[in-house]
């Protein structure tokens, strides 16, 4: 039984048919499939990479936002602080100035008052002197009619003077 002897006719057809099948599949079949699978692999890889990058960027953006927010907050705190400081300083300065001014005014006042007082005292003195002189004149004019009394007066005056100069 020719089980182990290859039949030439079948051999011929097998070569023809397998040749055609091989040609068709090797040209239009498998390379297309393999290429598409490879392309898909590349595409998936690229997509994954892009997704990873996007993720990283998102995280970056978040961090950036957080950073900006923190910075803003710090800035705010700083500005508030400096504003407070400025305010306090202005107030303190104003107070100082006001005090100084007050003191100065007070001093001036005092000086003026002093001057006024002195001039008033001087005035009073002069007036008193004039009045005294006038009174003395009048007294003297009435009293100096008598020589004795003149002498007494003079001596009393001299005594007084001596006494006061002591």
């Amino acid at each position, binding site marked *: 039984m020719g*089980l182990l002897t290859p039949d030439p006719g079948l051999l011929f057809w*097998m070569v023809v048919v397998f040749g055609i099948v091989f040609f068709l599949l090797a040209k239009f079949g498998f390379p297309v*499939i393999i290429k598409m699978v490879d392309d898909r692999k590349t595409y998936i890889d690229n997509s994954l990479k892009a997704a990873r990058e996007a993720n990283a960027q998102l995280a970056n953006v978040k961090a950036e936002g957080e950073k900006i927010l923190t910075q803003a907050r710090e800035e705010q705190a700083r500005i508030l602080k400096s504003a407070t400081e400025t305010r306090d300083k202005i107030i303190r300065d104003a107070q100082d100035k006001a005090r100084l001014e007050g003191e100065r005014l007070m001093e001036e006042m005092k000086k003026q008052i002093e001057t006024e007082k002195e001039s008033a005292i001087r005035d009073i003195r002069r007036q008193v002197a004039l009045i005294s002189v006038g009174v003395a004149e009048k007294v003297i004019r009435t009293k100096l009619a008598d020589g004795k009394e003149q002498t007494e007066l003079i001596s009393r005056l001299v005594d007084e003077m001596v006494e006061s100069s002591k």
Partner: protein
Amino acid sequence: MKKVRYIWTLVLLMVFTSGFASAGTSHEEGEVDVNELVFGHINDAYSWHIVSIGDTHVTIPLPVIVKSSTGWHVFSSEKLNEGEYEGLYIAEGGAYDGKIVERNAAGEEVRPLDISITKNVLALIINSAILVWIILGCARWYKKHPVENGAPKGGVGMIESLVLMVYNDVIKACIGPDYQKYAPYLLTAFFFVLVNNLMGLIPFFPGGANVTGNIAITLVLALFTFFFTNAFATKEYWKEVFWPEVPVWLKAPIPMMPVIEFFGLFTKPFALMIRLFANIMAGHAAILSLLAIIFITVKIGPLINGTMTFVSVAFGIFMTALEVLVAFIQAYVFTMLSAVFIGLSRVKEKEEKE
């Protein structure tokens, strides 16, 4: 891991039992001509017998194409049913049993050049058409769907996973660096063997032919592998064949090792040829023999016949299921061994080793 071991044990068990089954069948020839039944199927034929109901045989006649001593003859195989036609007839017994022969001047039977579309040729063409249709259909799917739409589902996805399995696990793993050049051939061989194996298991018309269980088919496949192995082999490969690294007395003056290595070139594809042929042929023979039990036991009595029918059908189902597995395994093994042989022919000089 344990599960895998169980599966392998089961597979090995199945392979052994199938071996026993096929070995045992030759003794089961009863009054029913099992031999004719089995080998009538396994061997090629000039017409495709589908079914016989009573005395009516449903048969597809196939074209006979013969170049005899009287020139070309092309006619339907129906004409041969009545006997001789145009000096040609189907031999009964003898060296050319079942083949178309003519008588030469001396009255001896001789075979003319016979390229008839036989049952196997038609099955081969049908199966190849199916294969081309499946693969080109997949390729067309890829052309219609841009990469962005994602992976295919259903049938195309199944073919793709098969292609990738062979491509990544077999071709890439066995050949090494320049595997891409060989990928189309190995993928074609895998799917060709797979489709023909599976079609052979379908018991009615478009399938059922014993294509990959015919030695002519496996011979051509093995020759293709032989060609791809040796045509693009590296210098190092030929050096290992004709001047291998063995003690000098083994290769000169009597070139023992080179002769062995040289024969190795042919035994490798020869093993491929015999393995595929024997496996598929034995599978067909085993299934048919098991089913033949039903008809053998008819004469013994209804009780035994009924029991044996049950046993035979159960075994038949088992064997067919096993053959589905074998169909895949043989396609895989053929591809893998071809890839390994090609990989061996791609050896580079061992610079790294020394």
